[in-house]
């Protein structure tokens, strides 16, 4: 399935520079008051950085389908943990518990 993919140093360097730029971006945006969107912007940039690291540095884009499925499954389970618990906490006040 996986014949060896050797990415060029250039590819890795571009990803690395992009990661540094996004770090600078997220840090400077934090000083502007965007209301609730501060969290949204910070986490969106974090998700982009995670995707770059996972797809390129961790070679997920060259991985077998099974590995990709395991990665997605893990993220799904994490989403269940976070979303269901926060849904509970966010809605408790509605019925005054």
């Amino acid at each position, binding site marked *: *399935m*996986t*014949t*060896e993919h*050797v*990415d060029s*140093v250039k590819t*890795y*360097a571009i*990803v*690395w520079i992009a*990661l*540094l730029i996004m*770090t*600078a971006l*997220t*840090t400077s945006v*934090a*000083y*502007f*008051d*965007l209301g609730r969107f*501060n*969290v949204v912007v*910070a*986490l969106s*940039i*974090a998700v982009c*950085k*995670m995707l770059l*690291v*996972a797809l*390129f*540095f*961790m070679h997920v884009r060259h*991985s*077998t389908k*099974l*590995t990709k499925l*395991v*990665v997605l*499954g*893990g*993220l799904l*389970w*994490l989403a269940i*943990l*976070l979303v269901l*618990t*926060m849904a509970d*906490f*966010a809605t408790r006040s509605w019925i005054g518990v």
Partner: protein
Amino acid sequence: MISEPHVESPALREQFNSAEQQKDASSLGMWVFLITEVMFFGGMFLAYSVYRSTYPAVFGAASRTLNTTIGALNTAVLLCSSFTMVLAVRAGQLGRRKQIMVFLILTLILGMVFLGVKGYEWNEKFQEHHVPGPSFHMDGPGLQDHAQLFFSLYFAMTGLHALHMVVGVGLLSFLLYQNQRGKFSAAYYTPIDMVGLYWHFVDIIWIYLFPLLYLIDRHGG
């Protein structure tokens, strides 16, 4: 044939059909381990989210005492270490032993710089009495009680992350030793690849810790 990985015979264990299948199996196993780590850290991220939504003002005030500049620079250090790590894996793919050594050493140094800076930040917290416990002190409404929650989570999350970095430094040292003994070649570099996955995973955890702990409440002060 069960034998130690060797330069000329890249140790194909008997249960696998091919070296490629063996490598895919290692990779899959490592990812399954990393998923358990995701869930481990996930619980802490969840605790942080719950308490931050319960005491938003307190968490904001406590978060603003952290030093963003140091945090951002340390993030950059860690991203650089991921870059050198991936270059070490690439050197492994190409079987260039000298390059493997150089990039592993660079990754090791950057990892230790990160830990050093983290230690400096923790020391600051001790001096400012921001460590949860009897000597904790913070002025402001509700801060004395609930800001300790923030700092408990801060120390637990950054501490667990730092512990993973320490383990990573140990793994890198072991790789350097193995590389020195000529264990790795283009046909067999799986350990470098696996430690690389681990190192990048620890990097990803920090990618989330940095905005959540340092950034998202910065503007309100």
